[in-house]
């Protein structure tokens, strides 16, 4: 496959994608880096001069910073946890023979197509509203005090909404993975005397590890930057201010571009820490 000719062709064909992405990454990022060292306040006339690392210091020392990192990690972690656990269970269920598999699959996949904005609006208003929401009706029906989900259990609610959107994705990937398991392996385990639970633990789960890694990677990429769900539901209140949202507030609400840019650089660093960490696992798992 590898003649000199094809190698140089490969380099040329890779170039557009690499150059575009490099530009996409570098140009705005460089500008962000530049802003982050400036006192840049558009509402006060724009660039008011360099301030060294002041923005950086201010951003981390602000009382909102660590809680926002924590909220980010809780949301990402929570959604990953829920989607993977339920994704595995659901894919096991859907892998069994039953009537109407096609239809159920259509039902399960549907949330994936829903815009984040729409799903957040629907959940917030029609389900989680403490007076008119369906949950409130349900709670009242069982004689319980309705919960104001978005304030009393804000992080949980957001995790729930986001999980609902991503569960189909996890389930589908895991289901395909389960279906790709060589049935002879399960039979061998059965011959070896493994119970259904042992077969799950010793055969199916290890087989799924690769798929789980992929779910982990892709979802993390998307979850680190969730925005619409928070913007629509809590606007960052009740401890749901993620790093992304905090930066948004700095840049757009306070119109402090310098400070926000410093936050952006921190987010890039956080993303890269997570990325390196993920790539380690994924790289290893994808090789095997």
């Amino acid at each position, binding site marked *: 496959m590898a003649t000199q000719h094809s190698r140089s062709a490969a380099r040329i064909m890779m170039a557009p*994608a690499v150059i575009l992405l490099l530009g996409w990454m570098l140009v705005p990022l460089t*500008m962000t880096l530049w802003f982050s060292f400036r006192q840049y306040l558009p509402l006060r006339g724009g660039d008011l001069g360099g301030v060294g690392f002041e923005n950086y210091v201010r951003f981390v020392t602000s009382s909102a910073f660590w809680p926002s990192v924590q909220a980010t990690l809780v949301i990402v972690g929570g959604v990953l946890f829920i989607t993977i656990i339920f994704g595995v269970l659901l894919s096991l269920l859907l892998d069994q023979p039953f009537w109407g598999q096609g239809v159920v699959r259509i039902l399960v*996949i549907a949330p994936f197509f829903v815009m984040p904005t729409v799903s957040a609006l629907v959940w917030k208003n029609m389900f989680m509203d403490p007076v008119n929401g369906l949950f409130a009706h349900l709670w009242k029906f069982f004689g319980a005090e309705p919960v104001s989900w978005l304030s009393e259990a804000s992080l949980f609610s957001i995790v729930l909404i986001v999980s609902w959107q991503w569960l189909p994705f996890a389930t589908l990937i895991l289901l395909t993975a389960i279906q790709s398991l060589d049935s002879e392996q399960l039979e061998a385990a059965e011959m070896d005397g493994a119970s259904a639970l042992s077969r799950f633990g010793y055969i199916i789960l290890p087989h799924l590890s*690769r798929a789980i*890694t992929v779910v982990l*990677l892709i979802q993390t990429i998307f979850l680190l930057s969730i*925005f619409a769900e928070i913007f629509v539901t809590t606007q960052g209140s009740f401890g749901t201010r993620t790093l992304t949202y905090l930066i948004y507030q700095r840049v757009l609400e306070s119109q402090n571009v310098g400070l926000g840019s410093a936050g952006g650089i921190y987010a890039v660093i956080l993303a*890269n820490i997570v990325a390196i960490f993920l790539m380690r696992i994924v790289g290893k798992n994808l090789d095997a």
Partner: protein
Amino acid sequence: MARAVTTRRKALTTIAAWSVGLLIFFPILWTVLTSFKTEAQAISDPPVFLFFDWTLENYSVVQERSNYMRFLWNSIIIAGGSTILGIIIAVPAAWSMAFVPSKRTKDILLWMLSTKMLPAVGVLYPMYLIFINLGLLDTRFGLTIVLMLVNLPIIVWMLYTYFREIPGEILEAARMDGATLKEEILYVLTPMAIPGIASTVLLNVILAWNEAFWTLNLTAAKAAPLTAFIASYSSPEGLFYAKLSAASTMAIAPILIMGWFSQKQLVRGLTFGAVK
């Protein structure tokens, strides 16, 4: 494993699977149902499920208020355009990675993916300035480019995983048969990878369709897609569940229907090389 599954067990599984399926689908179903209610029925206590006076009023209200077709058309153009553009750029790149791998291939791939982790808000301001200078604000072209760039890493990765499964021998055969590189990709690789390309296209149309940050921030009137349409409904005054439901239904229906029709393709391809 192919032992006779008892009917009893199958029935139980059926019940369980349908229950879970309906539970997951319920929010969407409820939204669609609510969109046909009057506002009063939408908040009635106890909630009415099916037995209400079905009305199309909400849809006409929504349509009156905003030109749905224009938003829809923009969504189609932007989602479709960015995907097609992405595919055109990604196919050669994925070909290179899959068939002429080098020591750096994997690093490049992971680097590409990592660009997706950059927080969009962090670079919004610079992007806005760039767009102003290039005159791309509120143009479908500009948005198409941005969404293409946003999703390019995913496209490359997906195509790469499909291409890797295509035996290199077939491309070599084409080469022996006298095909040039272009012909090799056009006549042999692409047709063979159609299922993979199809699911890549689908996934990216969905991602682009639902992208709500750039589409909202870089458009005004002319290029605004459905995400902007829904942004004007997030809280109209007074009772609004039914109207919100109608607008939501209109925003998600096209992609939902497309997704359902092509779900086999999508599911088959949604594996990112996770399954081998």
